[in-house]
């Protein structure tokens, strides 16, 4: 992972955070990341985050599950291993529904979870940079990327919008 220099500042309240982000955006400052202890309502629209593609991934995977689940049962009972149950039809659609449903749900759920993990770069033991351990407690943090020349100005910017504990985080070599 390529490490960058960051400048961070935090807020004690989610409302202050949103106000500060809006102020920074007016000055056309690029915000590298915002970290919060819980999902802050409306933060994604303020940051203009791209809408997650997870719903689509879930739908596609669910559809594959539906077709695979139903298709497989249909194949088994007509071609693979047809069993005669008292002369009932081999292709008995109603009795394929429960398994089809379960496979659909399973595929969609797996796609959602793995899509979330892969998309976010999360996973067992994934490397991570935590600049302030209080972020997972009660601090709402804004991170700005900064190269050597911009460090001071970024610090100044964060202080201007009311950020507390403004700090520079140099990459660990």
């Amino acid at each position: 992972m390529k490490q960058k220099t960051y400048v961070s500042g935090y807020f004690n309240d989610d409302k202050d955070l949103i106000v500060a982000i809006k102020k920074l955006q007016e000055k056309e400052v690029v915000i590298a990341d915002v970290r919060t202890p819980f999902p802050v309502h409306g933060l994604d629209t303020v940051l203009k985050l791209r809408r997650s593609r997870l719903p689509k991934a879930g739908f596609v995977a669910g559809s594959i599950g539906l077709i695979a689940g139903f298709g497989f049962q249909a194949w088994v009972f007509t071609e693979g291993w047809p069993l005669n149950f008292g002369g009932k039809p081999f292709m008995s659609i109603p009795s394929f529904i429960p398994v089809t449903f379960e496979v659909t749900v399973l595929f969609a759920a797996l796609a959602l979870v793995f899509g979330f993990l892969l998309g976010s770069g999360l996973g067992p033991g994934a490397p991570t940079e935590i600049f302030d351990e209080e972020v997972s407690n009660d601090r709402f943090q804004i991170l700005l990327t900064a190269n050597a020349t911009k460090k001071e100005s970024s610090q100044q910017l964060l202080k201007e919008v009311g950020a507390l504990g403004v700090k520079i985080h140099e990459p660990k070599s």
Partner: protein
Amino acid sequence: MYVSPVREPLISGEKSYEKVTRDIYSPMAGQPGKLWYAGLTLAIIALMFGLFSIFVTVWDGIGTWGLNRTIGWGWGITNFVWWVGIGHAGTFISAILLLFRQKWRTSINRSAEAMTIFAVMCAGLFPLIHMGRLPLAFFIFPYPNTRDVWVNFNSPLLWDVFAISTYFLVSLLFWYMGLIPDIGTIRDRLVPGIKKKIYAFLSFGWTGSARHWARHESMSLILAGLAAPLVLSVHTIVSFDFATSVIPGWHTTIFPPYFVSGAIFSGFAMVLTLMIITRKALHLEDYITKNHVESMNKIIITTGSIVGIAYITELFMAWYSGVIYEKFAFWNRAFGPYWWAYWIMMTCNVITPQLFWFKKIRRSLTITFIISIFVNIGMWFERFVIIVTSLHRDFLPSSWSMYKPTWVEVGIYVGTFGLFFTMFFLFIRFFPVIAIAEVKSVLKSSAEKFVKKK
């Protein structure tokens, strides 16, 4: 959001975000108490006894059970259905209540979901043991094999395999994805060391980034949307095990909705039984308040009444159908040799929960605790009544028989309690029992007094 003055807060006391973290983390910090060790030891002993009983069953054969030719399903399947039912409350709370935007779920969803997972583990054991040859249990899955045969997709028992394994996996993923941010919180509270490294590994590298939260929210919502019909399908399919057969007393179309509401009914009772103790033991009275208990009691009375109506409908249909076998089956349930089981079921499921119509009783922890245990017992007897009393009077009177469990069957049941509580004790020790991030997100609108940090 506007909070009307008559509505009581969901979280009592003066709370700041920091206080929430501290309150929920504190039971995990420091050394566990004597009670925890005592409880865990007891649970492990029960688990060992269960494993021994399973060993006896597999080693000596099914003859060690009290089953006979007429009564082929006894305690094993009763316990299976009972445990699966208990699991349903967790998914109901975390998925269906999430879709309905019920904020009170945030205090109880984590532990209820954990119960779901442990209960389904206990449930899954019984069909496996029942099949006899445990090492060959993988035969139930369709996989390409040298015998060139496939499983029977027409059988409700196979639908069960798919339903229960999907349910277990999806619940586990849903639960763990919800845990990731909170494990991150725990990781950041620990001093550097081996413990911190383990939590860092388990936290999947969570940082609390806005991008991750946005995806997390989107995933949780759709997973809830998937889990909601899934949970309804699971007990529906369990009921198909009975309903698609031709045994009088089993062959009824009312079974799916009746089983699903029964499952939620018994699940909430188990959540109450455990949470009333847990909130006291872990000092979480501010988070799991009387309002939570009251809300759960309202669900109990709703689902309990549905179950009661189902019982009466069954009786009516047996009489109205004019089928002598049906009529006999239900007459025999109530007044036959197993009359006591039927009346225990009726009392515990239909009569005592009706006390929750009184607000005083709904809000009384002691009475709720007692009634919740009654419901647990009643719902166990419901499955016993359906299975054993329907089977013991066969079409041929010469096959009529009675059933009594042996110590081996009782031992396996005790063992599943051991498994459940071993997992539960480990859970409350090593994971946050309340969803920290979710409680914080409703804190401003739902706390009695929100304290802003200066």
